[in-house]
């Protein structure tokens, strides 16, 4: 053995993964070391998830090779990877809410007599043991759907542990856990390490990474920008490598006056299903020509706040004002008519109707513009769409093709086009740069700048630190449903914003659980 105490178990050499329109991984070298926590870090869309999926057999490399125990391997499927001892805990929980905890833990590996008759007692016993190791007394008979998200996360971890894995990939395992549950998870990780399991750990919480990581690899735009042992690594080093010296092409603020107030939210509250508030007494104002960035971690209540503005939660309380006049409309079309437009976080499920043509998607919110009486003028519609396609430089072969055939960036522009066609005064953008490549990002940001200069008020949500710092005229930070910080673009620093985003991530008081 060399001076390095941890043997390399799996390595990727020259890994490249190409999707239509984007290069998610570009000539990546990555090592997974035995008995150590291998941290993978990068911004949204940097390629972490793709790399992880390649290791887990969900996706296959376009070029490059995977070497395990010195032999080249290829994983055609997740079961293939599992046979090599690779387990994965996905960020989106992959559980069956209608089945019991034990059933979930042993899914596809049921403990069965003669291969047909499931031995429930045996399974329950094994499940209890696993859960005890995780210091949780969740009943193995409980339905997963009845558990809190944090508990579901624990079940997901137990599921991975049940497989006796050699490599365990954890994608943001702490995003749904409380502080005390995080401590338990860290103890389990230490235990696994001691048994020689290699852990690939992905998280956005940088302090956490510095604390438990042994090796760190930073990805940016599909390339590795830093890779070393964790000794001596601190948060600024990670941030520097994540963002890079050469900053992205953010269109700088043009000098234009911030106008009068166009939008105000007062005391908006939304009760969370888990008790407590998903949106906790949020008040804010937005001015014409202003870009107001809302920064926060996932689950901070940012998207829920947007949903309240868009009348998606009838139970939400609080009031909204547009140009000083109260907005009382109870339905989305009424609110759109008042000048609000939303660009949702998830293009696929909330922004677009994949099977419909680009044209029909773009005009869906603004069909009234093309109607005389009840007759829809397709000619005027086509012209309207063509104008916006040109204006937003959307690259399409034909506006009649299904929107699903476009790349992420162009799909996002279609969503933006749809919002702009309603002539909004206020644009709500939820993670506008998510899942689109760097060129398209820059274009989206330029469009945002231009719209602000034209007098639109833009409220945008992001979990990308650099984005919020360089794009916003003013920054609000949300954490646990509350606004925990407000900064002008001049006074905002990375440290201050990150600190505000972590406020309230202490153990929740037990009363909230009721």
């Amino acid at each position, binding site marked *: 053995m060399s001076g390095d105490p941890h043997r390399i178990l799996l390595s990727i050499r020259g890994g490249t993964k*190409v999707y239509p329109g984007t290069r998610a991984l570009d000539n990546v070298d990555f090592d997974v070391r035995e008995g150590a926590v291998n941290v993978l870090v990068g911004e949204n869309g940097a390629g972490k998830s793709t790399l992880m999926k390649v290791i887990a057999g969900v996706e296959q*490399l376009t070029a490059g090779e995977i070497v395990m125990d010195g032999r080249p391997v290829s994983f055609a499927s997740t079961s293939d990877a599992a046979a090599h001892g690779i387990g994965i805990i996905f960020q989106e929980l992959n559980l069956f809410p209608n089945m019991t905890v034990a059933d979930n833990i042993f899914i596809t590996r049921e403990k069965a007599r003669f291969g047909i008759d499931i031995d429930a007692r045996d399974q329950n016993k094994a499940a209890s043991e696993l859960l005890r190791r995780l210091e949780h007394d969740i009943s193995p008979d409980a339905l997963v759907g009845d558990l809190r998200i944090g508990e579901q996360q624990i079940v997901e971890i137990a599921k991975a542990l049940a497989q006796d894995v050699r490599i365990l990939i954890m994608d943001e395992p702490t995003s749904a856990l409380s502080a005390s549950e995080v401590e338990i998870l860290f103890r389990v990780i230490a235990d696994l390490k001691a048994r020689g399991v290699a852990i690939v750990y992905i998280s956005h919480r940088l302090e956490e990474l510095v604390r438990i990581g042994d090796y760190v690899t930073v990805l940016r735009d599909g390339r590795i920008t830093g890779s070393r042992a964790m000794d001596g690594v601190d948060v600024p080093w990670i941030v520097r490598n994540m963002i890079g010296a050469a900053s992205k092409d953010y269109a700088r603020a043009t000098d234009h006056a911030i106008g009068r107030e166009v939008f105000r939210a007062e005391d908006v509250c939304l009760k969370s299903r888990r008790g407590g508030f998903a949106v906790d007494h949020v008040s804010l104002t937005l001015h014409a020509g202003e870009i107001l960035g809302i920064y926060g971690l996932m689950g901070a209540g940012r998207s829920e706040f947007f949903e309240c503005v868009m009348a998606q939660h009838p139970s939400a309380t609080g009031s909204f004002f547009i140009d000083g006049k109260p907005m009382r409309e109870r339905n989305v079309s009424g609110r759109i008519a008042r000048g609000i437009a939303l660009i949702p976080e998830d293009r696929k499920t*909330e922004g677009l*109707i994949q*099977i419909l043509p680009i044209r029909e998607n773009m005009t869906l*919110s603004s069909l009234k513009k093309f109607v005389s009486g009840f007759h829809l003028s397709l000619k005027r519609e086509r012209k309207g769409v063509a104008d916006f396609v040109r204006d937003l430089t959307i690259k399409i072969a034909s506006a009649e093709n*299904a929107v699903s*055939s476009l*790349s992420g960036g162009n799909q996002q522009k279609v969503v933006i086009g749809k919002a702009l066609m309603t002539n909004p005064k206020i644009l709500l953008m939820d993670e506008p740069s998510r899942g689109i490549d760097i060129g398209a990002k820059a274009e989206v940001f330029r469009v945002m700048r231009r719209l602000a200069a034209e007098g639109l008020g833009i409220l945008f949500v992001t979990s990308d630190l650099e984005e919020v710092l360089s794009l916003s005229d003013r920054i609000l930070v949300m954490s646990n449903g509350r606004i925990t910080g407000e900064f002008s673009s001049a006074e905002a620093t990375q440290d201050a914003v990150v600190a505000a985003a972590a406020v309230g991530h202490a153990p929740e008081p037990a009363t909230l659980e009721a």
Partner: protein
Amino acid sequence: MTVQRAALPMRVSNNQQAMLLLLKLRTFIALFAVIIFFSIAAPNFLDLGTIIIMAKHVALNGLLAIGMTFVIITEGIDLSVGSIVGLTGMCAGWLILNGVPVGFGYEVYFNLWEIIAIVLCVGILVGAVNGILITRLNVAPFIATLGTLYVARGLALLSSGGQTFPNLNGSSAFGTSWFPMLGEGRFLGIPVVVWMLIVVGLVSSYIALRTPLGRYIYAVGGNERAAALSGVRVNAIKMFVYMFSGFCAAIVGIVIASQLVAAQPATGESFELNAIAAAVLGGTSLSGGRGSIGGAIVGAFVIGILSDGLVMMGVSEFWQIIIKGAVIIAAVVVDQAQQRLQAHISLQREAALAR
């Protein structure tokens, strides 16, 4: 791990284009195939008399299929149309024979226009019940309309105690004497019911293609959440499609009662299945967002001609059922192939552009 080249976008070949066109026109091709087949295989198939009888059969299923198509495009299903046919037929019969008692032994008799309006309202009302169950009470469309299937059929049976209302010849005193004309009458040599199909079909096609309402129907079926966030009033759209389906079923109910000059409570049993079959045959996708009124009507013609043609050939009824089932399954399989090819072609076009 083998090293592969990144797949370069290829040009869309002419073969694929031709294939796609062929697949898109498959319902028409099927229609011509059955027409040609039967005109050779079945004697008298192309007689004017035969054609008119077949057109009348087809028109009834076509009307139901139009309503069903809108429902299916929103990712719903309406199993209650057959029962609505029965119930509305009984309503028409009741109103013609008995009028409406207003107490003191008096009955109010309506003229035929009023009866038609009332009966259509009954159909729309059952559709509205479906819509309310689905939008307000969140009952799955399959279950909600299965429930109204039973309830409406039960009401139809209750209305006469299971008996038939016979001799609905109407009376000239009440202005109902031309009731049989609805089913048997002709205009310019074409049966009235076929004219109804033409009118309803054209109006529905117009709604689907050239009105915001139609666009919203497709949007709701394609992605309900995205439609809602775009400002589409999803519940109102769903209410419309079920009420429209009820409306179409009511037309069929009246016409059948008029054709038979009698109202029979069991009328319309399993009509819903034929309507679904016609819609699917015409390219409507049960997963929502896709379909066309024209396709549904052509689908109804294929099914209608197929069964009438087989009867004329003297093929046993049992074989007819099997053949009908096979044709429907084949249609869906071909539909899947078309979807794949279409997605492939537009992806290639966009990928070529992204270079």
